[in-house]
């Protein structure tokens, strides 16, 4: 199975090198593509100097658009599966072969990582949001996704053209619900996640509430009609 890891990077000079080096060591058989999303720090120079496989977006277009560029690359180069991988070191690469195995064994379209299946206890505001989203997805689809906001997701071959060409399909929980309603199958594997290894989080309180608002509006109103 030919797998591509999409690693979106926006101003990640602090941790990109470590993340990709670890990735190459642990998963030598998995290709990766760093999407430099118009970073204003030294991310593009790091990509060039280390000879990382990367593309440079001329302007900052956001995570969803960067991911979509990666999906277009995967489509062009005939990959069988794509995994979403954070550049900040939160994701542990050794789970990727496990996810690929699960994808092949179960024939699912999407494999999601779940921190809660691994026994992590929910706490804090972020987890309250995650629980609400999980509940809304269950109402819309009758399917339980235990950890909808976890960013480590693997997409099978059928999903690649969908994300490469689709309108407003962000790699986010509401899209998962929409796909589930359209007959796409999803399964989960237990994973754990590290603290980010450097740089600053994209999510400040304002962005977090906007994210929550968007996801809920999408789940309450649009999943039913899209």
């Amino acid at each position: 199975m030919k797998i591509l890891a999409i690693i979106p990077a926006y101003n990640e000079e602090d941790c990109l090198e470590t993340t990709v080096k670890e990735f190459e060591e642990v998963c030598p058989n998995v290709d990766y593509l760093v999407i430099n999303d118009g970073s204003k720090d030294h991310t593009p120079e790091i990509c060039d100097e280390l000879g990382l496989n990367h593309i440079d977006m001329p302007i900052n277009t956001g995570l969803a658009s960067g991911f979509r560029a990666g999906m277009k690359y995967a489509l062009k180069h005939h990959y069988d599966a794509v995994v979403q991988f954070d550049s900040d070191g939160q994701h542990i690469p050794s789970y990727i072969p496990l996810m690929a195995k699960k994808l092949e064994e179960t024939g699912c379209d999407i494999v999601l990582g779940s921190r809660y299946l691994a026994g992590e206890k929910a706490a804090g505001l972020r987890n309250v949001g995650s629980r609400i989203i999980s509940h809304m997805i269950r109402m819309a689809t009758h399917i339980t996704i235990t950890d909808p906001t976890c960013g480590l997701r693997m997409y099978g071959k059928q999903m690649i053209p969908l994300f490469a060409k689709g309108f407003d399909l962000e790699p986010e929980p509401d899209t998962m619900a929409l796909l589930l309603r359209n007959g796409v199958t999803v399964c989960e594997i237990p994973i754990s996640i590290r603290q980010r290894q450097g740089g600053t989080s994209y999510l400040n309180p304002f962005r977090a509430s906007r994210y929550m608002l968007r996801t809920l509006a999408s789940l309450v109103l649009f999943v039913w009609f899209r």
Partner: protein
Amino acid sequence: MPIFQQILLLAGALLILGIVIHSVHKKRILIDDSLFWIALALFLVILGAFPQIVYFFARVFGFQSPANLVFAAITALLLIKEFRTSAKLSLLKDRVNQLAQEIALRDSNDKDSK
């Protein structure tokens, strides 16, 4: 507020909601950009359901008629929205120009290296 006006307000809100959902369905608007209109529809529903809110604020700000407050508030809201749309459009123009410049430069690089 007469019951007829209340019904009109609610009907307006439902119409907005219908148009927004239809547009999202038809892939004419991003969910991100639809949030404002969803919020506006909810705001109108609240005003239609609880007109006491309008009466209260009309008294506080000294409006002669509650309807005037509704007009003023919605005009102000739409002006702000219009300005923000203009500002967003400016940014979009700049970004399109930047992209055109980048593509032109990349094309010339390709020619140079041939």
